[in-house]
């Protein structure tokens, strides 16, 4: 379904004196049809760059992206837009259009294709039903909780019936319980609709829950890859061992609740076990206050 061949991406920083930053270095892997494929790695490892290369939001410096057997690396103009329309993407910060209702957010990708309005809305309602938010169709994103906003974003990403869904840290802004429900929804979509998923995360627990296969990247290089259970049970690279180690430390720390150890939780930046993140409470209250009504 997706083949990444020798993908490299170098950023040239114009401000520094010809400084080049190698965000990705010779990354290759295949994602099978219907698979949930995880990319894990620490912050700054190049995960976002990688996923953005798949729909060419970022141009690879070298290497090839092959989708469904077609080399799309050089796509421009209309074919590029069509390629992107065939993939859905969701983001850490949800990226919903604030001035559009939930319904209008979900119909957005269909508006670009000039679908008739009645058709668009029927499709949007189908999707809102799938994500369990039909009653919020007329609400605005600011009136929804983080988890609800991500559900809307998922519905929007599915509007064009994509075969591929790209998820960049889709649950990183959510609390543990909301994360679990969003992951369950994604898994459900994968199984019911057969959507191939590329899931980017720095949280191992996320990969553990939904990914069939994982690839670990570090400083732009792919260091390990395999079936999720296998990689986690028997890590080969030091990077993976360290990632797993910090997770075990976290779990122990959460049990012992010693202040000194808890401090390491904060420092290690693993949010999935620390009790932080957005809550399920609606956030529309502040907006109403700002309007001064």
């Amino acid at each position, binding site marked *: 379904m997706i083949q990444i061949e020798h993908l490299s991406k170098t950023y040239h920083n114009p401000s520094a004196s010809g400084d080049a930053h190698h965000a990705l270095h010779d990354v290759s892997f295949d994602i099978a049809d219907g698979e949930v494929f995880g990319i894990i790695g620490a912050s700054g490892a190049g995960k976002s760059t990688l996923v953005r290369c798949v*729909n060419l*939001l970022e141009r690879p410096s070298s290497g090839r992206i092959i989708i469904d057997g077609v080399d799309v690396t050089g796509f421009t103009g209309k074919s*590029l*837009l*069509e*390629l*992107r*329309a*065939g*993939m*859905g*993407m969701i*983001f850490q*910060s949800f*990226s919903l*259009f*604030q*001035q*559009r209702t939930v319904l209008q957010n979900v119909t*957005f*990708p269909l*508006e*670009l294709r000039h679908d008739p309005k009645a058709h668009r809305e029927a499709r949007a309602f189908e999707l809102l039903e799938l994500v369990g938010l039909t009653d919020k169709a007329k609400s*605005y*994103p*600011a009136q929804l909780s983080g988890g609800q906003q991500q559900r809307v974003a998922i519905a*929007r990403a599915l*509007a*064009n019936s994509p075969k591929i869904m*790209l998820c960049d840290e889709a649950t990183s802004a959510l609390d543990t319980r909301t994360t679990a429900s969003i992951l369950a929804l994604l898994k459900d979509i994968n199984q019911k609709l057969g959507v191939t998923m590329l899931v980017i995360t720095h949280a191992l627990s996320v990969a553990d829950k939904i990914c069939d296969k994982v690839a670990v990247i570090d400083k732009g290089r792919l260091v390990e890859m395999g079936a999720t259970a296998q990689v986690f049970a028997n890590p080969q690279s030091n990077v993976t061992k360290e990632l797993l180690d910090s997770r075990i430390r976290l779990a122990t720390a959460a049990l012992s609740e010693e202040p000194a150890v808890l401090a390491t939780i904060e420092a290690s930046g693993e949010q999935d076990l620390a009790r932080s993140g957005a809550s399920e409470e609606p956030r529309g209250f502040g*907006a109403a206050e*700002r*309007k*001064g009504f």
Partner: protein
Amino acid sequence: MEAVLAFFNQYGALLAQGTLDTIVMTGLSTLFAYVIGIPLGVLVVVTGPAGLHPKRALNAALGWVLNVGRSIPFIILLVALIPFTRFIVGTSLGVPGAVVPLVVAAAPFVGRMVEQSLAEVDGGLIEAAQSFGASTWHIVYKVFLRESLPSLVRGASITFITLFGYSAMAGTVGAGGLGDIAIRYGYQRYQDDVMIAAVILCVILVQVIQSLGGLIARKMDKR
């Protein structure tokens, strides 16, 4: 009381005509300034260093035009543009004669305000739209303009009020309006009562536009 009635009998029609002239003159100028200023602001954002289509030279040239346009004092523009105004509307006098220099003065100002409103749009939304295969044109009107609409409305009321001030100067080319009345009657004929009435109307008009703009912007902003 009788004095007030007598005043309105004598000057009511004049002041009403002046108010209408001012509204028409300022309203038309604001409208045309946006017809020119929106594309300018959009172009600046789209061709900017972090824009959808970075074009260094074009962006620099546009920035220069907007800055120079805003730095020429209006009263000088008014006079310097007389031949151009005649060419466009056939006369340099009256309301049409005033609208041309007002639009020329306001368009660069509007361009910058539009640029600022669009810059406030979250880059994540642009990226999301791109990820669904939106073209540049779609991103401009379905994301940039749509998401910044409340901010654009606030900008429009500021533009209207600024042009309102300029339109008083345009009175010197015989455009009429409240500013013109205040100057002709108050300054040249020492009729303070007419001048004060005209100024009061100006204050009310500005207040109404400001409140209306704010109210509409708040009503439409769903954030």
